[in-house]
Structure formats: C-alpha cells, structure tokens
C-alpha cells in the first residue's frame, strides 16, 4: 500500500460526508446505500466513524459530474476515468467526484428499484414473465398511461408482484419540486418541450419543468434515466429507436458497426444518417459501491496500491462478494490504527460431520460433485434436472442441427425447428462413453461429420460410435503449456478456429495440424466480445461468445449485433 506524501490523514476520527447531487442512473436510496456501504468498508477496520451531513461543509463532499466539472481534472466521457478523490485536508481536499458519463449500477446490469405498485419498493427482477413472454427491461406493455413497470419476482403471471420503474412520468430528483413528476408539454424561454431536455444547462443533465410553464413558475427537477435509456453520446436518457438506419443499412438491435472500439451503440431516432442522434447501449455498468469504496480510500489518505487484488489498485474490477484485501487493511490501519474492541469479524461457524451444513456455493476452490461411475445398467437421469436452472454450461455446440448444452456429464439439446423447447437431460456417457464428465469445448466437422471433444489437455474424435483418443492437444500443434481449449468455430472447408485465453489458432481438420501464423490475439480479430469468454461456438451462421449466463453474438462480418441470455434466447426457458 501507499499513503500520500506526508501521510496525509484526518486529524479526527468522526469524519463527515455530504452527498451533493445524484446520478440519474440509480434511485437516490440506492446511491445513499452504496455510499454508506462504501464507508462501512473502512469503518469496519478502523476507529473511524462516518456521519452524513445534509447541508454545510463536510469533510468529504461527494458529487457526480461530467467532463469539466469544476476542478482541474476533467472526466473523459464513458469508460476510461471513472472517478477521482483528493487526500484529506481543507477545501476540495477529501472530496470525491464520480464521472456521470459512466453507467452507474451495482456492477451487474441495471439496478432498478420500483415505486408504488404492490411490491413495497422491491427491485425489478430481470427477466420476468408477463403474459408468458420474458422481459429483461422495464416495459410499458399492458398499460395505457405509458408508465414503465416491471415484475419484482421471476413470474408476474403467477405472483402478480410489480412496481413502477424510474421515469420522468413518475418523479424527478434534485431541482426545486420535491420530486414531482414532469409536466409535458412545458414552456421554457417561450418554447414548448414534450420531453426532458438539456437546453439551458451546460452540464449535460436532463431536466423538465414540473408545471406547464417554467418561465412563470420556475419549478423544475432532473429526469431519472430509464433502464432502457442510452448512455452518453448526444442523446443521454433517450431510448434506442429500432429499427434505425445507419449508412443506409437497417439495424434492429445495438451494433458496434462504425466504431473502432467495439462498443455497442444505437440511434435514438429512426435515421442516424439524417439525425445523427445516438448513444451507447446500456451494459453492466460500474459498481458505484466498489468505485466509491476505492475513492473513499483516497479521501482517507490511501494512495494507489500495486497489489492487484487490493481495493486501492487503480484499475476497476467487479467482484460480487467484496472484502478488503490485507494490503488495504494494513494501509488504513497504518494511518488510523485498528478498530478498538473485539475482533469485528464474526466467528466462523464450525462444521462437523454430524451437524447439518448448508450447501456451499460452487467456487473455483470448491470441487464440483462428479457423477458416479456409470454401472452396467445406467440409471435414468433425474428429469427435474432442468437446463433452465443451470447458470453456466461447460460447453455449447451444434451437433446434427441441434444445439447441445453440456454440463457435468449431462447434456440437453434444442432443435432448430419444432417447438424450440429443450430436451434432456441425457447422460453424455450414454452417447459418447469415452468422454470425461467435464468437457471444455466440442464441434462437429461440417465435412466429415466427425465430432471433436476437448477436455483439459486432451481431445477425442467421434465418428459415429467409433472413437479415437484421448490424445493430447499438443499433437495438433497447440502449445504444451495450454491448459484447455475453450471454444471452437468452424470456418470454411475443413478449418476450425480454436480459442484459449486471449489467443486463437486455426486448425486444419484434414491434416489435424494448426496452420502457420498462429496464435493470434482474439481481441484483434473479434472486437467487442468479452476477452474472458469461456465458450465460443457457431450457430446458424453467427459466432457466439459466452461469459457466465450471457452471450455476445457476432455476425460473420465480425460485428457484435446482439447480447443476450443463453437461457432465454438459446434454451427458450
């Protein structure tokens, strides 16, 4: 860890903070909570306490801003710089600023807290079922007043639990209207407005009048962003308009076409070529909690650490179950000492063989249960093993026109035609007995119809019921240091692209050798897909890159044209 030169620190332990404004991306209560939790990260391990002030000058003044936001260090639009903070001291020292051109969430996609309805302010549950259709955003379907709403459980049809999503039709924040909703149309400087506007402001924030005439009443508020709104560009807060025309072509979903950075964008009018209105499509966003905890570290006197797992490492990394690294704890305790009193860590439960224990979540350290050795008479597979309950599959591939989903010795399949529902589970060992339970990737050679399976450093080739293998993957010309093959794309006549880590190789299936000139960097050829995809496959002419439960679909021209859920889009859950 590092501290600032001179070990700058607060000379009192009762530190105060004040939230000066809010981001339109999240409900105020979620932002308040994210900041409070971020302070608690530090107060849990030091004698520091944090008290929120609602007016006056606090030690740590927290604000959101864009670009030039009143200090000598402007922000830079979406991504890049996320936030900064000043070390302890008077004036601007100790303050924390957050770039509001970022999409602020809890780190894992839109965090939408509802109002009204019958769910008592619960968070939206995405996806949710409504009239047997699955939705992953707030919707206005089923309403005549245009108010966006969402289900707060997975199945609205069954549970009937719902709430209204943030929109300018429901409330505003900040301003001088106590959260009243926008009134449309409203008059501003003699002109009528039918939607929120950035006119009259230099900071890029969208606002509206909360009476019909701002010029006379001067009542206004800021518009919350809908979860479907674009980020940045020149249409912040507007929804994507599908279809839209770009360079004469029609697009029905977000695209990375036209950009060198692979980011997905959309037009907010039906014709980009004429209107030039656009914005970035909502993504997972950045965790306000994690970024705030880091910035508050600066505000308390910690500089950047060079320990990659430390909170004070300068790069952003999303972690679901956050805990402070020892390096951070040592750093902050060097400045303020440890928390007095008993060890704040709760005692860990002891587990014995006789007491019931809860099922641990599978982690990299927790070995997954392996299927028992298959006896001569194979037991039937539990039909309740529903593919829709699986979050991540070992591999997905198309075999004989059916998409196969493999997981821990089982597989499910969906056919391209028919009702689209998945079938299974089936035991992998019944159809391909030579294979281990966990396979990393598989593909069917389009010419010979042979099926290749890869698991760790070995591969098998099935030709009907005949099997060759296992053989080591280095026999194909892959490096002996390679741990596994994570994805495969059939290309042209007898060529297959194999993926592992950040590299890919081209395999000549006929010669069973990697072509010269490989490996190449995946991100140089396949821009805009996750660098840590754990599965890649070809399906209906598109390349699919999977990470966790999501896929990025890429056209044969290597443009990402869709991001979606494996479960809902491919498995039809």
């Amino acid at each position, binding site marked *: 860890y590092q501290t600032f030169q001179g070990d700058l620190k607060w000379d009192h332990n009762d530190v105060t903070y004040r939230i000066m404004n809010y981001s339109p991306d999240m409900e105020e209560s979620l932002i308040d909570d994210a900041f409070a939790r971020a302070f608690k990260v530090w107060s849990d391990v030091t004698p520091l306490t944090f008290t929120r002030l609602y007016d006056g000058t606090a030690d740590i003044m927290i604000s959101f801003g864009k*670009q030039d936001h009143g200090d000598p260090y402007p922000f830079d*639009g979406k991504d890049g710089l996320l936030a900064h903070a000043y070390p302890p001291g008077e004036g601007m020292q100790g303050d924390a600023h957050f770039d509001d*051109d970022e999409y602020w969430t809890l780190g894992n996609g839109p965090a939408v807290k509802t109002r009204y309805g019958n769910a008592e302010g619960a968070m939206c549950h995405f996806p949710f079922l409504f009239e047997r259709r699955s939705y992953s955003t707030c919707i206005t379907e089923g309403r005549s007043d245009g108010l966006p709403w969402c289900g707060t459980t997975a199945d609205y049809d069954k549970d009937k639990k719902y709430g209204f999503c943030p929109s300018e039709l429901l409330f505003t924040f900040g301003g001088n209207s106590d959260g009243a909703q926008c009134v449309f149309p409203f008059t501003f400087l003699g002109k009528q407005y039918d939607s929120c506007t950035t006119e009259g402001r230099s900071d890029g924030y969208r606002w509206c009048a909360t009476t019909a005439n701002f010029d006379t009443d001067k009542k206004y508020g800021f518009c919350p962003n809908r979860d479907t709104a674009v980020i940045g560009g020149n249409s912040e807060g507007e929804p994507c308009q599908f279809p839209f025309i770009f360079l004469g072509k029609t697009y029905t979903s977000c695209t990375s076409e036209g950009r060198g950075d692979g980011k997905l964008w959309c037009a907010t009018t039906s014709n980009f070529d004429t209107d030039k209105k*656009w914005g970035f499509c909502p993504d997972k966003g950045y965790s306000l909690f994690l970024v705030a905890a880091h910035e508050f570290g600066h505000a308390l006197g910690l500089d950047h650490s060079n320990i990659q797992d430390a909170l004070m490492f*300068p790069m952003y990394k999303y972690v679901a179950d956050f805990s402070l690294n020892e390096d951070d704890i040592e750093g902050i305790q060097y400045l303020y000492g440890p928390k007095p009193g008993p060890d704040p860590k709760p005692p860990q439960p002891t587990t014995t063989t006789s007491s019931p224990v809860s099922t641990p979540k599978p982690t990299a350290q927790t070995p997954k249960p392996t299927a028992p050795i298959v006896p001569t008479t194979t037991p039937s597979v539990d039909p309740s093993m529903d593919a829709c309950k699986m979050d991540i599959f070992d591999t997905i591939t198309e075999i004989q026109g059916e998409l196969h989903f493999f997981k821990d010795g089982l597989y499910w399949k969906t056919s391209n035609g028919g009702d689209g529902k998945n079938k299974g589970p089936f035991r992998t060992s019944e159809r391909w007995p030579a294979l281990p339970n966990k396979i990393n990737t598989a593909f069917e050679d389009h010419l010979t119809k042979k099926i290749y399976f890869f698991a760790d450093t070995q591969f098998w080739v099935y030709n009907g019921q005949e099997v060759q293998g296992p053989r080591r993957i280095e026999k194909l010309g892959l490096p002996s240091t390679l741990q596994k093959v994570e994805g495969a794309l059939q*290309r042209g006549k007898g060529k297959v692209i194999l993926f592992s880590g950040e590299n890919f190789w081209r395999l000549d299936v006929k010669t069973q050798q990697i072509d010269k000139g490989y490996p*190449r960097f995946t991100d140089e050829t396949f821009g805009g897909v996750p660098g840590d995809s754990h599965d890649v496959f070809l399906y209906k002419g598109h390349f699919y890159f999977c990470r966790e439960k999501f896929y990025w679909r890429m056209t044969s*021209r290597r443009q990402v044209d869709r991001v979606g859920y494996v479960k809902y889009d491919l498995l039809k859950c």
Partner: protein
Amino acid sequence: WCHPIKSVFVNFPGDVIKNMTDTELAETYLKRFGYMEVQEKSGLQSVVSTSKALKRLQRQLGLEETGALDKATVSAMKQPRCGVPDIRN
C-alpha cells in the same frame, strides 16, 4: 478470413475523441498518471524516458517489465480506472 474487415468508422457527434494511436495514448497516459515527470530529491522535476516510464508503469500494474509499448501494456492503459495519479510528484 482472419484479415480485419475494412469497416467504415464514423465520427459520432458528441463522442469524446478517443481516436488516438497507441503511442499518443501512451504519452497521454504516462503523463496523466505521473510516470513521465518525476520529482528528484533536489526538488527539481525531470522528465524520464518513455521506456523508463513504461517500465515503471508495468511494474506498478504487475506486467512484464519490457519497457516497450507492448500489447499487454496498451490493453492495460485502456482499462477503466481511477483518475488519481499512480506516481505523485
């Protein structure tokens, strides 16, 4: 087919200009985060060579210290991050 497609890139209005070359990106990054200008013990500022600054950055970020603007370093420079300088002068 592995040759990159010649896509048409468009200047999006309102977009923050980020069409920098890797070298330009590196220069900006090294300066912004304090790797280029280093305060000597005498109190004087001195500008270190790009190679030295790159090595310093690579050490800070746990990358291989090549002193060259390699792919891993460029990739690290494009990651989202905190705006506070890594090296304070």
